[in-house]
């Protein structure tokens, strides 16, 4: 079985399991919306400072919802704490990583698709689907590459819910900065803006490769 078909087989299995149990999506989606609403109250948004707060609020919501999802998807692969059923199979560990990564991106993506229009409505800011797409894509990929790797690490500990954000947040700082600034520039165009998309793309490429290589060290017993 080729590498790609292994990835797709695992991904399809994960999607089907999630569609049946519906645990991850619903909690993630609800969470993202709640964060956005709370932000609306927390920051008194008048017309002038909305553009400054809105991108940050949106990405904070996405990051927190992502962390929730990352924990859930790795937990659903574990049966009483071990990934035996997948590890028994003659499947390349890199393929498992890619499948989990794509699954995570899908889950976060669905939440983002739902949250964006609501976000636009709540904050009353226009959002340009065309130009926003690459930002959201690269940003989500950045969070997911690091997040998928570390969710496997944190899953092996007792304090996984606490440990995952502690490990992931510092490492995704470049992505968060880039995504927030790029989204902000979209709303309020500014000159001499550094190439944020380029930074995010470089980050994604580097950490996708490194994480894929490191994954087997993390899930082997």
């Amino acid at each position, binding site marked *: 079985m080729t590498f790609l*078909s292994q990835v797709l087989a695992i991904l399809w*299995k994960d999607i*089907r*399991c999630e569609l*049946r149990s519906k645990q991850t999506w619903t909690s993630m989606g609800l969470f993202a919306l709640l964060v956005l609403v709370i932000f609306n109250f927390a920051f008194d948004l008048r017309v002038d400072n909305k553009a400054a707060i809105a991108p940050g609020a949106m990405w904070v919501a996405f990051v927190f919802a992502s962390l929730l999802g990352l924990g859930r998807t790795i937990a659903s692969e574990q049966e009483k704490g071990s990934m035996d059923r997948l*590890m*028994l199979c003659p499947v390349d560990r890199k393929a498992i990583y890619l499948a989990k990564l794509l699954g995570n991106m899908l889950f976060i993506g669905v939440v983002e698709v739902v949250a964006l229009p609501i976000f636009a409505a709540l904050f009353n800011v226009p959002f340009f689907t065309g130009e926003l797409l690459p930002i959201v894509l690269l940003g989500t990929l950045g969070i997911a590459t690091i997040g998928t790797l570390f969710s496997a690490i944190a899953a092996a500990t007792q304090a996984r819910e606490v440990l995952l954000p502690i490990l992931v947040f510092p490492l995704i700082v470049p992505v968060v900065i880039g995504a927030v600034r790029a989204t902000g520039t979209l709303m309020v165009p500014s000159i001499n803006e550094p190439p944020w998309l380029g930074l995010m793309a470089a980050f994604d490429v580097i950490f996708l490769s490194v994480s894929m290589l490191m994954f087997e060290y993390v899930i082997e*017993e």
Partner: protein
Amino acid sequence: MSAPYLEIKGLKKTYSLKPILRGIDFVLDQGECMALLGANGAGKTTLLRILAGLTKPGAGTVHIGGLDSVREAQQVCHLVGFVGHQPNLYDDLTVLENLLFFGRMYSVRQAHKQAVELLKRVGLTRHAGERVGTLSRGQLQRLSLARALLHSPQLLLLDEPDAGLDDEGIELLEELLREHTERVGTTLFTTHNFERAVKFSDRICMLGAGRVVYQQATNGLESGVIRQSYQEVLR
């Protein structure tokens, strides 16, 4: 005399700095069926998990079908079928979907046909469309056996396969083991039931504190005779 199918040399394993296996050596020829006995904590499950490739040996070598289990791990996976303490199945998928998934993972040819036949063999055809999460313990065990046999492995590793099975299930297990041996497949299983160990296997082996302390061929011998020599060793 051909080379043994399963060859274990000097196998050691430590968990959390506690030595579990302290040097295991034995061989299994192709077509042999061996029962592994021993108290809880003697290392039976750890040994099986190493053979299944779920964990790596601390020291020593394992050769299955001439392949090194660590260096050629992926090829060895195809040769091994494992039934552990956990059912190793996906609760949210149906019985058939589970088998089809593992069929894809193991690149089983005509997976659907194989799966249906195996379900018939283990008596789960009626439940093919049910979610695995709804199955009983005995049904899970049967499905687990089906999953292990799906890719026609040469070496069957079964960790307490009789646990959770009713009398009918035990009969089925015995038949499956016999069929496997007839296909010149090798089997290694653990059990706490001495009678069953003697009845199902060609050889019994006992682990004590991480080492092999007793081995005895069972063919042609009465279980009473074996039990006597077994008690001698315990003393």
